């Protein structure tokens, strides 16, 4: 079994949104600004023209962090949210009753409602599409113009992601919450 994770060389992100479209086309996600499995976050610039703070305008690609200690899984009353053997956090639409506890519990705001199934949806690391076909990349990783993303098996010491996490400094989002995300931001 693998334990999938993703490392993000986020300083290379130019907010071009190739990943967002690749995700929607690959996984058949609904249209709409609130129907995103993945997105790129950035804040409004600080300062006054022309004295602006360049660092205030950084781009942060984000999505479900596939936490090892996922608050969404903990609060789900029907066990619709579960961990796969590969460490991916999934939602079983058959069990989901749209109580939305998980949406409130997720510190990363990574969940939204799919209006077709009327259940909660989120990133699956392309498990039903690409991984199921035997591919080893996610749609977002494969298409990225500036090659921000490295997807792979954290349990395999020889994988590229393991190597990168051994050799480069990185951080997790809201690490203080103890959710143990499997997304790592490389500095």
């Amino acid at each position: 079994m693998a334990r999938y994770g993703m490392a993000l060389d986020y300083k290379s992100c130019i907010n071009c949104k190739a990943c967002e479209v690749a995700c929607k086309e690959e996984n058949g996600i609904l249209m709409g600004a609130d129907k995103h499995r993945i997105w790129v976050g950035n804040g409004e610039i600080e300062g006054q023209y022309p004295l602006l703070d360049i660092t205030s305008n950084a781009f942060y690609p984000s999505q479900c962090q596939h936490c090892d200690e996922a608050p969404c899984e903990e609060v789900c009353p029907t066990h619709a949210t579960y961990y796969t053997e590969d460490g991916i956090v999934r939602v079983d639409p058959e069990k989901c009753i749209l109580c939305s506890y998980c949406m409130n519990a997720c510190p990363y705001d990574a969940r939204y409602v799919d209006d077709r199934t009327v259940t909660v949806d989120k990133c699956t690391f392309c498990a039903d599409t690409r991984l199921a076909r035997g591919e080893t990349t996610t749609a977002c990783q494969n298409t990225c113009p500036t090659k921000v993303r490295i997807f792979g098996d954290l349990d395999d010491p020889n994988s590229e992601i393991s190597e990168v996490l051994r050799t480069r400094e990185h951080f997790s989002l809201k690490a203080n919450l103890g959710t143990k995300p499997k997304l790592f931001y490389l500095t």
Partner: protein
Amino acid sequence: MEVEISRRKFLQGTVAMSVVGATAATSLLSNEHGGGAKPGVVSFHNTKTGTGKSHDVATLCEMCVNKCAALARVENGVVTKLNPNPLFPKSKNMLCARGNAGIQALYDPDRLKYPMIRIGEKGEGKFKRVTWDEAYEAILNGTDKFPGLSKIMDEEQDNRSTMLFCAGEGMAEHTFKQFYQAFGSANWLNHASICLQTVTSGYGVTLGSYPQADLDNAEYVIMAGANRAEAIVTPDTMDIFKRTKRRGAKLICVDPRFTNTAAKSDKWLAIKPGTDLAFVLALTYVTLNENLQDNDYIKKYFNGYEEYKKSVLDNKYTPEWAEPITGIKAEDIYTIAREFAAAAPKAVYYPGRRSTFAKNDFQLRRAMAIFQALHGGIDTEGGLIFGSKLALQPHEGLQPLYEKAQARAVVKSTDGKGYDDCAVISGGGSWIAWRNRFLEGKMPYKVRGMFCYKHNPMMNMPNSAKTAEMLKKMELVVTIDTMPSDTVMYADVVLPECTYLERTDPVKTFGGVEPSIAVRNKVIDPMFETKPVMEIMKGLTTKISKPLFEISKKYDEEIQDAIEEDGEEETYAEFDLTLPFRHTQEELNHHAVAKYEGAAEQLHHHGIFYPKQDEYYKQLAINKFQYYPEKKKYYSTRGGKPKTPSGKVECNLASFASKGIDPMPVWRDEYAFSVPSGKFRLLTGRHAQFTQSGTSNNAMLRDLMPENFIWINKRVADKKGIKFADTVEVSSSVGKTQLKAYPTEKIAPDQVFFIHGFGEESEELTWAYKNGGNDNKVIEDNIEPVYGAAAMHETNVEIRKV
């Protein structure tokens, strides 16, 4: 547009043709009930990929000009995903947002689906569906609403130049251009004069070529007036942004706006619009004054160095002089010139690739090229490179001479030095100058009709009101397009082309550090009654060639003589317009690469070919590919020698002086930036999710950014009581447009900005119709003096909250 087929019927067609096996039924059904006009109802082709049987077809993207390599995944005849093709050295396994959204262009319910002819008034958008033969017949013989080619050619006594031909950029532009050449007109207009004319020509006359930049190895990059994070160019965008933020390349961004490129830069310099020339001249001054130039390179490869040096030093283009003109601190200019020189030759003043913004753009490009060359960074690793190119075998075309065909419709200036509106007439012509001459009755002869291929003059050039007037005055307008654009609404005959995913295009060779040949293979058969332009040309020329020859026989004495001498059959063979279209595109492509063993096969299956590809190509890591081993890359192919006829960098162009153009780049007071109080300078530009008006109806891209917003300085907006998303009216001396406001500190208090390509008015575009603001309704038709290229940042506007 009145059509005989309802949207419902269209959808039945689509469903039958494209939705088998896809999980798309729900979203397509939402269309059936009235389409996207309903708020909240989203019409798009939802293509979740399956896990069953599929195959990949190697194609090239056409969502913008880059031609990145893609693999189209086809399941049961439906294209369900476009993935990057890792084999292409130019695009290096990437596909941007637009590339991924190409599926929506293919399955856009608003596509042109069958030939149509106009039945209403010009521009009214009332058409009737006809067969291909009826459409060709209408082009030849007209209808009660418009004259055909026969009548026009007869009345103009076989002056073939009475028809204008215009085209947008694309791989099949070549095919259409062959029709133009065979037809024998001298009037050809393309995108150049509303695009990169001045940059390619500026570098062309100075270095002999418009070079590429080796951003993969450059240690210092000045990116001025280029926005590679948003106006994506492969491989430049990928190469540079992997290496910024102290990871190999220092990036200096010079732009009046704080763009995404500025966000990734080490230093952003907020320059006043149109003053980049003063910035470069001041950098050049520092280099020459402090003796930072590469004297060995200059000795070998410069013409006119001493004169240029004298000009720059004597004119005292000091950083202190440039500071008030550009708004950039003198201290910054000193630092940048010194840092650039220290990093040279692995330093790049990035040439850029964009529309002309200011009237001095040609001189700016010359000054940039010379500044780069002064430091020796030409034809070298980490600098500007010429690279290598794999030759293709040309195929037979047809360029007959018609005695009665007049020269291009331009007017010489009274002093005889140049032309009435610009100094030089380039191959692509000056669109604005040509249009205005036509409207003002200054043509040397009558131009009565036009063929328009993959081109949208209504949206693409400043002052749309004038373009509309021109299209109305044209007696016969034939458009070949995939979408019912604003220009198509003015057509007399509409010929529907299939999209790029439904056709094989002419094979293309891509030069550079890692040269290769690439092809766009047909992914699925053309939908509805659409055809590739190759087949359209074949059908059209079969219909019109003989009858037009009969008219030539009547007026062309040379043809009459030839017939007398050689007989009619032999003479006609040289005027047979069908000749360039006798072979299929696949056959022509096969022929083009015949000299490379296995190339045709490789291109057909994998899309990309270059010699020793099997040996060289390797995936080194998840995101890293080797195309050529380091030692085999073509960083330097001429030992630094420029490609000009003299083999030297040309600083002083005497031939331009005789046309009234400054032979060396100098600053002129009229270039200074100023805006009358209460007004704003309008800036326009590109965006990473849209390609001009070409993608404005793409449902997926619109999902990322539903409409364009006008950037206005936050403090100014506060004062004017304009809040985020308030609708404002933008007006100039030529027109007005409305869009929503985005107050931000990313723009100066005396400037406003919005992206180009929005606000179309064709009612047949569900998503694009009156969505956002159209910059070209407001931009005044200024042209620069050398090539007559549109100067797009020279319009001052007023802003009013509505």
